């Protein structure tokens, strides 16, 4: 319990540091926030244009599709706010030889890195995602108890992104240009911007079992629309749990292999 309390205090301390840093360039912070809201609002706008000129995406009304997009934005927003930045720190630290500093502090390296990766810009994305989700939920009509399960599915989505980031961070110890994996992962995540049901054949298999972004972004909204949340939870827990365990194992392996460099 004391260690949890310690983690919490460490996390909050880092939040205050992040806030102080961002306040250095207030205009930039403002534009960053606005830019994230603009960037996130554009995909629903594209959806609006598609739905006004065509019947839309099969199986999804406009409101349902906005719920889907809102969930995607919310998941990535939360990840951005809490931890997306941490592999960049690992890559940087491994490259310039300063990673050792994480090893000598009295908190596990991974916990330390994760809890010190606040990015306040994420607030803008979380707010946009929440606004879209709330609007569409009111339109679609959702029973309050299912919200809890929906929240669990969103949390699992974040856990999937976290696992991918742990894998990228681990790779920093093994290969040189591991930042490319960052770009590749985020590019692959774009598949999740549209419902899994539009993809066919091998691609669908890939997005379900190999890189389950399709599952992660798809089921929270789909389950809410179809009212099969418990079922969906099972479908998501398995792939995400597998990826998470694999990521942690890889990280352990990387930590063992690390012999310090740079000097």
């Amino acid at each position, binding site marked *: 319990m004391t260690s949890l309390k310690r983690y919490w205090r460490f996390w909050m301390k880092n939040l205050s540091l992040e806030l102080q840093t961002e306040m250095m360039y207030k205009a930039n912070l*403002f534009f960053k926030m606005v830019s994230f809201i603009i960037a996130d609002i554009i995909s629903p706008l594209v959806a609006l244009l*598609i739905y006004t000129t065509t019947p839309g995406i*099969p199986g999804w009304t406009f409101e349902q599709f906005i719920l889907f997009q809102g969930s995607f934005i919310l998941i990535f927003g939360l990840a951005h706010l809490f931890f997306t930045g941490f592999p960049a720190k690992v890559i940087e630290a491994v490259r310039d030889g300063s990673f050792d500093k994480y090893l000598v502090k009295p908190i596990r390296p991974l916990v330390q890195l994760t809890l010190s990766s606040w990015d306040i810009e994420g607030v803008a994305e979380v707010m946009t995602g929440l606004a879209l989700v709330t609007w569409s939920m009111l339109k679609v009509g959702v029973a309050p108890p299912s919200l809890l399960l929906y929240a669990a599915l969103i949390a699992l989505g974040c856990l999937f992104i976290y696992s991918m980031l742990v894998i990228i961070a681990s790779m920093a110890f093994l290969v040189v240009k591991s930042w490319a994996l960052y770009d590749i992962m985020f590019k692959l995540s774009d*598949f999740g911007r549209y419902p899994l049901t*539009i993809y066919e054949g091998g691609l669908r298999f890939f997005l379900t079992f190999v890189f389950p972004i399709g599952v992660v972004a798809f089921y929270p909204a789909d389950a809410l629309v179809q009212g099969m949340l418990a079922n969906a939870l099972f479908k998501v827990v398995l792939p995400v749990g597998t990826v998470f365990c694999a990521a942690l194992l890889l990280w352990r392996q990387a930590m063992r292999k690390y012999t310090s460099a740079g000097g």
Partner: protein
Amino acid sequence: MRRQQASGWRKGLAVTKLGFKESLAYKFHYFVSLFGVPVNVLIYYFLWKAIFTYSGQDVINGYTLQEMVTYYVIVMLVGFITYSQVDEWIEYEVVHGHMVNAMMKPLSYFKWHLYNTLGMNSLGIIIQIIPVMLVGLALGLKAPSPGNLPLLIIAITIAAALYHLLTYLTGLAAFWLLRIRGLRRSRRVIVAFLSGSMLPLTFFPAGMQKVFSFLPFTFMRFTPVQIYMGKVAAAEAVLGLCIGLAWVLALYLVTRWVWERAFKKFSGAGI
């Protein structure tokens, strides 16, 4: 005795070469960005296939499914050719105090970055455009018809000029705001949306399309793509390019005006 002062043209070429060499340091980055091409093509192919099948129509807002996918491929190609990240360089120079150095160069700041960007994009053409073009052609992308080629080259030049000027203007904001990551991102997304990178402009309401035909964004992506695909009549295309050219001049004048103010604002701090 050789002349001390090289001609402007030679200086420009030297900076272009420099830009090319600089970009070689990032060649891996260019390769990685190529990864986005098949991902985008797959996403758009399946998205539009689903929409076309669902609607039961063969043509939506002037595009068949095949043309829709072609549209996105050409948008990406135009995007690679007209790429400019000069705003990022300007921000870097302002924040890290390299501006004095940059101002001492024997070339105006504007020209320096123009030639530098040209050099950097040359590598992009070798690494990105040629492979994408070849793969595209193998998969059934049509080459532009020879008759359209002169117009296409002019359209792409205008697109590149507009994109670079707008990016340069965004960069100058760093003189007042210092860090401009957020502003750069806003610029990128807004341009992508209004220039037709995400959706052909024919999907917008008719009134907005009218307005768009007078805005600079149209000429950054949509017009070159339409000319490539042979979707506009020559006369109409020429008229459009005249408006685009007028925007190039207008934005250039704005750039000069803002630069004068930025120069006055600049205090040389951080040297």
